[in-house]
């Protein structure tokens, strides 16, 4: 059974758009199935969805499946919270202040920045023909960010979050001895 109204999917999380308007067609199966995981059955804002589920056995079956799955979501073990707090306490005790709050000495930061700038200036000619290689493309990024190590800032370099999987893996493979 299809109840498509051709409106496309509604803005996610905006339950109010699902309140039925007199004279307007009901929301579509695709819209309903997009929204099922976000739905709180007690939320009155989803009244349009309720109406759809009442008349569409396929969507009603998917709703039952989604709610059954959602009830079985894995919960985090208590060890995460206790472990984070314990390690944060250890770091605070070791350093007087939380390690994450400490900064490298200003002189060291300036030295690192100067060294990185000098290295960039010296290496730019050598690197100019390497742009096609993914690893060198990262190295030649015009907006180098800070590379964070486990302990602190290491050098100029890419932010791993910004890298695509393939690129990151290529970089890691390249670095692997």
């Amino acid at each position, binding site marked *: 059974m299809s109840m498509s109204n051709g409106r496309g*999917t509604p803005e*996610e*999380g905006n339950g109010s758009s699902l309140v039925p308007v007199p004279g307007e067609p009901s929301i579509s199966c695709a819209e309903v*199935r*997009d929204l099922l*995981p*976000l739905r709180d059955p007690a939320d009155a804002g989803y009244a349009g969805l309720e109406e759809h589920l009442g008349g569409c056995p396929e969507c009603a079956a*998917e709703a*039952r*499946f*989604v709610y*059954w*799955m*959602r009830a*079985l*979501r*894995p*919960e*985090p*073990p208590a*060890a*995460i*919270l206790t*472990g*984070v*707090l314990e*390690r*944060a*306490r250890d*770091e*605070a005790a070791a350093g007087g*202040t*939380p*390690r*994450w*709050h400490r900064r490298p000495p200003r002189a060291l930061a300036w030295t690192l920045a100067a060294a990185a700038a000098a290295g960039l200036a010296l290496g730019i000619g050598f690197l100019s023909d390497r742009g096609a290689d993914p690893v060198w493309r990262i190295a030649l990024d015009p907006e180098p*960010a*800070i590379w*964070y190590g486990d302990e*602190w800032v290491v050098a100029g370099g890419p*932010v*791993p*979050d910004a890298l*695509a*999987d393939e690129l*990151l*893996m290529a970089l*890691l493979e390249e670095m692997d001895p």
Partner: protein
Amino acid sequence: MTTGQSPDGPDDAELLAHAQRGDERALNLLVRRHQGGVYRFLLNFLRDEDQAADAAQNTFLRALRRLDGFRGDSSFRTWLVSIARNEALSLSRTRRRRREERLVEGDLVSGPADAPDEVAIRSDEVRRVQEALARLPEKQRLSVSLRLFDQLSFREIGALTNSTEGAARVNYHYGIGRLREWLDEHVKR
């Protein structure tokens, strides 16, 4: 700054500022608020409960250390999960290298990533759902988990799985469809 806000507590930005100054109560609240999403993402990435819990701890501590890297152009939750993703990639790489070393030494090669049956479980149903999820391709698995268990938008899921918003939606629906088929066949509901 786009951060999550709880109706009965301070928002993430406020908690972060206090946690950075060493306020343990703020850190406690922050971890409680986000540990579920981070843990489930890691569990579906690594398919090993112990490793997921360890990686979740590392994720929170790493986030606190590199808080300056949070630019506020995504939600704090999305930023946190992106750190978790890097943590998981790094762990996967280490795990793969260890497996290769064992292979060279002539050991039996069998790691948790290839053995969904070994995922620790709380109940038979949870175990079966985790097994079924583990059968899905990675992007479908992560899309289903992030949407179903943590109510992320398709845009956020796309950003976390290196996909577009549309691809995230398609991955979710394919994933749900395959899960239904498999679980209808193997699990009595």
